[in-house]
């Protein structure tokens, strides 16, 4: 049986190339059908059991496992939906328009509403259309942004007095944004930060990514970026594609030390920090451009609790979210290639400590060291960077 697979370049696919790949895939399916053969769609398996990690590469890469869908009574719905959605995406690329996943869900619903023949394809909820879009991306080994399907610009508010961003817009216009002239307003990186060029107007010593956007704002409001030659980025929880690609851009173009400052809990280490540093299992095909392997974990470290007498508390196992995070951390210790690698031994030790002691400490606890000193957190962070007290 024939296989309708693609072997695309990993990055930088242009519109025409994407359209070519899509049509190639459709052509193979059509030929198979004409010969009464069952077409097979194959995609890279994007899950932890197909993830490899090498410290020299620095991020999670896909293994050899593939997910195949052969046309039969069970898969005909999925395949037809995928081809239907592919048509919408290819048209978007062709006419150079973009849509979010939510918008594509409604575009698809609109077609179904106006054509009774398509009724069977109707998506019950957005999850169904989202999974079809993900399947197309995995099949074509393309980022969803390359298929003009963009995500919300969530997280990544960036502050610096010495950074200039040069953006080339789709119509060729060039916009120059001097972050030092924005006052207290942040710069928000877009979904495709790969289009951005970075320049400096002065010395930049480091870049710090802060888990809580609120804490990042507090630091900036207290003059952190005025006193230090640095870039401050608020991650806003799990870093979005934009934040991950933006930090990668900073790593590649500026070559300054990168630090991550977040809570000391299983969720932060295993999910937020790991995703920022080595990408995620769900996006194996895009990790090369959507993570920053040079980023270091500045804190909160387990030793900091004693050192600064921080307020910590027990993990509430009755809380479903916290219990799940703890369970995922246990899984990560034994199954995640990132934590299994010797290079990340110290991070694994933190996870072990968290699982064993069932304690957690939030980044805001630094403020409790001296509540009357608004610069208390800044002093600790700078002190830790100076003393190289990070992992």
């Amino acid at each position: 049986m024939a296989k309708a697979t693609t072997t695309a370049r990993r990055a930088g696919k242009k519109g025409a190339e994407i359209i070519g790949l899509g049509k190639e895939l459709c052509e193979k399916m059509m030929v198979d059908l004409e010969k009464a053969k069952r077409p097979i769609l194959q995609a890279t398996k994007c899950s932890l059991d197909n993830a490899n990690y090498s410290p020299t590469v620095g991020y999670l890469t896909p293994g050899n496992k593939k997910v195949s869908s052969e046309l039969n009574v069970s898969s005909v719905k999925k395949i037809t939906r995928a081809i239907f959605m592919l048509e919408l995406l290819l048209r978007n690329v062709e006419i150079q328009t973009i849509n979010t996943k939510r918008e594509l869900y409604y575009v698809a619903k609109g077609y179904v509403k106006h054509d009774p023949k398509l009724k069977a394809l109707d998506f019950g909820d957005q999850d169904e259309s989202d999974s079809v879009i993900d399947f197309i991306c995995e099949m074509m080994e393309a980022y969803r942004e390359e298929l003009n399907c963009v995500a919300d610009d969530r997280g990544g508010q960036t502050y610096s007095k010495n950074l200039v961003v040069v953006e080339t817009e789709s119509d060729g216009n060039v916009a120059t944004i001097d972050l030092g002239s924005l006052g207290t307003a942040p710069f928000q990186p877009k979904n495709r930060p790969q289009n951005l060029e970075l320049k400096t107007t002065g010395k930049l010593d480091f870049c710090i990514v802060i888990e809580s956007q609120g804490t990042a704002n507090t630091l900036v409001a207290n003059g952190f970026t005025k006193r230090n030659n640095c870039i401050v980025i608020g991650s806003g929880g799990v870093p979005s594609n934009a934040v991950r690609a933006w930090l990668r851009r900073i790593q590649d173009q500026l070559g300054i030390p990168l630090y991550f400052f977040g809570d000391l809990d299983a969720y932060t280490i295993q999910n937020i920090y790991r995703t920022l540093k080595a990408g995620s299992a769900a996006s194996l095909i895009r990790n090369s451009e959507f993570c920053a392997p040079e980023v270091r974990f500045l804190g909160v470290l387990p030793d900091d609790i004693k050192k600064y007498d921080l307020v910590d508390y027990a993990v509430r196992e009755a809380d479903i979210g916290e219990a799940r995070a703890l369970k995922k951390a246990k899984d990560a210790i034994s199954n995640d290639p990132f934590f299994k690698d010797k290079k990340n031994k110290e991070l694994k030790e933190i996870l072990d400590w968290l699982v064993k002691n069932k304690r957690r400490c939030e980044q805001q606890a630094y403020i409790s060291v001296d509540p009357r000193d608004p610069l208390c957190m800044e002093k600790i962070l700078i002190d830790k960077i100076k003393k190289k007290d990070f992992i």
Partner: protein
Amino acid sequence: MARPKSTSTSAAAKAAEGDSDYLQKVKKSAKTITTSSTAEYFSKNLQQVGFSSPVKAVLTTLKEAVDNSLDACEDAGILPELSLIIHRLGPGTLKNTDNIRIKVEDNGPGIEADDIPKVFGEYLASSKFGRGRCSRGQQGIGISAATTWAMQTTARGAKVITKQKSQRKAVSCIIDMDLKNNKGIVRDKTMIEWKEPHGTVVEFTLDGRIQLNGEGGLLTYIRGTILLNPHMTLHYDITDHPKTSVERVTNTVPLIPEATEPHPHTMKLGEFISHARLFGRMKTRDWLKRGFSRINDRAIADIQKDKDKSKRIEDKTLDAFIDTIADDNFKAVYAAIQHATLLPPATNTVMAVGEDGLALSIRRLGDVDYFAVLTRKPAICDFKPVQIEVAIARLKERTGEDTDSPVQVLRFANRVPLQFDKASCAIVKSLTSVQWRSYGLRQPKDSLPLGPYIVAVSVVSPFIKFKNASKETIDASDELVEELRRALMQAGQRLSRYLKRENKADVLEQRVQHMEQFGPVLIETLARILEAPDERKQRATEGLSKILERDTKGLKKDLKDAEGRLSSYLEQKKQRLSGFFKTIEAEEEEAERKLKAGDDDEDTIDAEAEEVESKPAPAKKAKKGKKSKAAAAPAPAPAKKAAPAKNAPPAKKAKAKKKK
């Protein structure tokens, strides 16, 4: 403008006078602090014990009377047979109420004449309070509250007729309440002829409103009582509803386990000391062993071996008499025991209906299409023994029309239906926290599952933590909710096994349709993307038809197999259940044969008894007919029928009468 001096002086005098009045009032009110009786308190706070609305008043009165009857029958080892009459007599004295007569008759052991005013006219007079048994009633509040409500709304107390086995005549009287002294007052006491060998009739006339269905409905309550009491025969006659009789499906009176001694970890210091006072003169060591469960010589030896000396009990305290120990020493003993690791309380004090009983009883609720029942092993929650039972039934009558309505939840605590304030109940909280989707039921987020199902959940424990005195809601502690969740999930798994079998046939049929629906759309879309000519489209369509033909051929075979498996599964279940019915029928036939043999020995049979005996015959016949029909269906039809309930007592009663 300056005021005349005399005016200002008189104002000051008035103010001073006012202050002194105020002080006098305060002093006076301080002097008038009085003590009220329990009855006075409850009479002013009847809403706390289930009389907060006319609808609840009727339901609570019925519920309390039925609970007492069932408890009394079970305590005496009698198979309960209850008759309920709830009639609307006319308009009530309160706004928007009716005058209602509620009469509950049982075949229980009867009540001692001296105890009648205590039972119906005195608060907190109970034979069950604090005994740590799984009885329905606990505190001795409910039926007295019903008498209070009747007196408050109609100025008439409870009418009681009761007869014990040893009595020739029955006692008939009216019980009023002396609220001031929390005492029952007996009026119009007479001895009357009563055909029953023993039993009690209690009748209330009160203002209220009859609601048949819904959360607070009388039929909902009756339905729940029927489900959890498979050994009960019930006749009921309610205004606007046909007279109905529901026969028992098991002939075994549940044996209520005796209470064990309390576990020391369930006690507070004050209770601990009071507990000691009950034992008179006894050494502390003996008291600990005899007065508590899970404390024996070994447990005491373990306490004395504790590395921390302060956690041990002093030897001289252990050997001292408990009535001579100072409170401080008690505190030390209490602390040492609380610190010690003891076995959890025994679980043999709880009782459950059992899966077989539930399986038989659930079909008395209506035309049940499929059901799953589950009885968990007794467990310890919050240091108290608890047993959970779950029954899930799909009703044929609700299938199709009510698929978008939430399931009907029947909650029970010690076999008593709970009908109000369900949102904060542990049972509902655990029901909504289970992911029913994985068991094949539809469920909106954090809500009850949807569909034509009845989900009955019963919690049995000698120490159920209720949220209020009216016992409408079980407190949702984490441990109890978790235990309930486990029971529900297990029952869900049983249900899903059936639903999966049932769904498989549907799924296979859908898949055959899938190819026909999606195939043409796939080719159309591919052709559009590739801008392919019609000839290619035609060739692809033909190729797809060949694939489709191969698939549907295989699928149709699978479909046939799946249907065959489903019907054989239902057949197996049906055969298993028909086994129970055969046993019951055999028992009943045996009883009937014995009865007939006894009749032949009797020389004199009075005409009344003969008449009474002749009546149940058609009912019995009808019952048998139902049962044989029931055994032939996957989930047989209920043994429920309209019958002249009170006029047709069963053969047993007739025999007793004859002997008399």
